[in-house]
């Protein structure tokens, strides 16, 4: 134990070894919210979807919005971590673990949302018994199932050396868990080799899977004939939006844990600068896609399409739409372009704006199209009920709770990768840099 305290990476072990009263307060508070959501959901199970604000024209609401939103956030993780690993960005080391945990947790929450939305959740297994391959919903089940499997494995495999470290160096009540999960990893050359190969294969495999998941989610909308949805741009648009909101969430999580666990030494200013750059790039990408999408609609001036567009521009959804533009474009671009504003509080502010903006994007994509049916049907406005708000709050609370519990059991920053960076990364980076640079060719004459 004492030698562990002398370890330079002791701050990474500390949250696991030392108990903090604030942790229990947070768990208690979050549990109350989750309990509330649970009670509301049980009520929905008893009464049916009567307790929501949905109606026959706007038959998809908060549950589907949050489904798309949460699955979007889950993109941060695995995709960013895989791309950073693949491009051998050395600054990735303290970030990848957090990113992967976001994916795994949010995917559970997001993946369960369609079940909340079902009128008959008791029949959900019909999807497997009588599945119709033609339905985009079935593509979703397949893609999310695959992504969840891939991303949890991708979270777990690079964690094995850390679990082995915890098994050998700590003596907590969870030693049995560490012993079980480390699968006899001793850090021999052969084990290291297999581990690195596995990580390489996984990170290559996980990128196309991640891209496919959000593309398929956009297909739920774009495969229908609804105006405002039936658009070929939706696949890449949703993927961009997903990575955008995911990056923002990752930044918020990084800033939160930096403060909470005093990790200033690990998550330095430079990490936020780099991640902020990524956020800025995706903000511009998002704006470009949004602009193309609406310009095409407005220029074509098709009456049905215009009904939906005007509903967003000047109609009842104008406040949400323009807030979205401010949150997703104005705030991140202004904050992240000026060095003076690009501080950690500034980035935190921009990230929160992006998360809110991306949620509003999902809202303004889904509701206005449904609220403007092709035939002039008498319809009522959609006002989300208390149950839907409760389950929304519950979803966020589950995210925070699972994250805190994870951070209590496992190191939130990869210890072995930091160590590897210190011991091997420096030399490797130098070697790599040498290989990029043009060789100095000494001509024969000079040599002689």
């Amino acid at each position, binding site marked *: 134990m004492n030698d562990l305290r002398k370890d330079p990476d002791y701050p990474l072990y500390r949250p696991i070894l030392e108990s903090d009263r604030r942790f229990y307060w947070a768990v208690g508070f979050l549990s109350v919210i989750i309990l509330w959501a649970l009670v509301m959901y049980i009520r929905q199970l008893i009464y049916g979807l009567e307790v929501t604000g949905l109606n026959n024209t706007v038959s998809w609401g908060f549950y589907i919005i949050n489904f798309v939103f949460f699955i979007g956030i889950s993109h941060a993780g695995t995709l960013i971590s895989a791309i950073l690993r693949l491009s051998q960005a050395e600054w990735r080391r303290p970030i990848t673990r957090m990113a992967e945990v976001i994916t795994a947790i949010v995917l559970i929450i997001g993946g369960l949302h369609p079940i909340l939305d079902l009128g008959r959740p008791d029949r959900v297994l*019909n999807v497997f018994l009588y599945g*119709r391959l033609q*339905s985009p919903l079935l593509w979703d089940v397949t893609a999310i199932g695959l992504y969840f499997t891939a991303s949890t494995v991708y979270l777990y495999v690079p964690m094995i050396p850390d679990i082995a470290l915890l098994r050998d160096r700590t003596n907590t009540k969870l030693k049995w868990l560490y012993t079980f999960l480390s699968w006899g990893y001793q850090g021999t050359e052969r084990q290291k080799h297999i581990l690195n190969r596995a990580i390489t294969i996984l990170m290559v495999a996980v990128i196309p899977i991640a891209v496919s998941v959000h593309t398929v989610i956009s297909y739920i909308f774009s495969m*229908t004939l609804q105006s405002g949805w039936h658009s070929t741009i939706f696949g890449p648009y949703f993927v961009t939006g997903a990575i955008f909101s995911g990056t923002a969430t990752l930044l918020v999580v990084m800033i939160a844990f930096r403060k909470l666990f005093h990790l200033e030494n690990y998550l330095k200013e430079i990490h936020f600068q780099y991640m902020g750059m990524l956020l800025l790039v995706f903000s511009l990408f998002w704006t470009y896609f949004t602009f193309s999408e609406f310009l095409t609609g407005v220029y074509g001036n098709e009456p049905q399409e215009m009904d939906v567009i005007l509903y967003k521009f000047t109609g009842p959804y104008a406040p949400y739409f323009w807030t979205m533009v401010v949150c997703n474009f104005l705030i991140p671009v202004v904050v992240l372009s000026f060095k003076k504003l690009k501080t950690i509080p500034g980035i935190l502010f921009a990230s929160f704006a992006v998360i809110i903006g991306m949620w509003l994007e999902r809202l303004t994509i889904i509701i206005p199209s449904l609220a403007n049916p092709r035939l002039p049907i008498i319809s009522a406005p959609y006002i989300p009920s208390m149950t839907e708000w409760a389950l929304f709050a519950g979803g966020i609370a589950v995210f925070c709770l699972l994250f805190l519990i994870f951070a209590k059991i496992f190191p939130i920053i990869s210890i072995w990768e930091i160590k590897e960076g210190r011991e091997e990364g420096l030399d490797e980076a130098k070697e790599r840099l040498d290989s990029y640079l043009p060789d100095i060719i000494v001509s024969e004459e000079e040599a002689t």
Partner: protein
Amino acid sequence: MAKWGMVIDLNKCTGCGSCVNSCRMENNVPNVGDKAAQAGRAMDWMQIITEYEGEYPNIRITHIPRPCFQCDNPPCTKVCPVYATFLNEDGLVGQVYNRCIGCRFCMVACPYSAKTFNYSKPDFPEAYEKTLNPDVTRRMNGVVEKCSFCHHRLAIAKDVARFEERDLREEDYQPACAESCPTNAITFGDLDNSDHSVTHLKHSNRAFRLEEELGTEPKVYYLRKEDR
């Protein structure tokens, strides 16, 4: 193979609503109550859409009764993840209430808003209970339903025709809405059979179909309203 379809003459329709009500009686469509109806959860299978043109007092009103169009190329069936809605052997779009998981994807996909969802447990008052049609299932909470062109009547008509060893005649199979229309605005029959009056009506120069350009091939035709 018969191709069952409907022609609705908008010149004749007065918007009286008798098709809506006869449909409710025939198909055990639950009455959701005032509060739910105001929240947009009314469950009419046959719905009258009213279009207003001009300003009062020079106003022109068109009533468009809208059943399910039983499209030949239905956008709703292909999105169903469990085959709970499908194009059946009679060319009608069927609903399997016992299999439906209530995801409402078909409602979202239907460009004609023809589908409704059971947001609550259907509640029939005691007096109403005795008038329920025994040929039609009562739907449960949490499933999607829609107009079936009174498919149960086709099943009975087919049985009768087989028993009497003859072909199906036009008058054997008529849905409740067509039967109850006081102005005969709704004509029903086999769109491919030249003995049936719908075949001639659909070729009228007033005939059109709603949102035809979507390629859904609806089997319900309308005859344009003309000023007289």
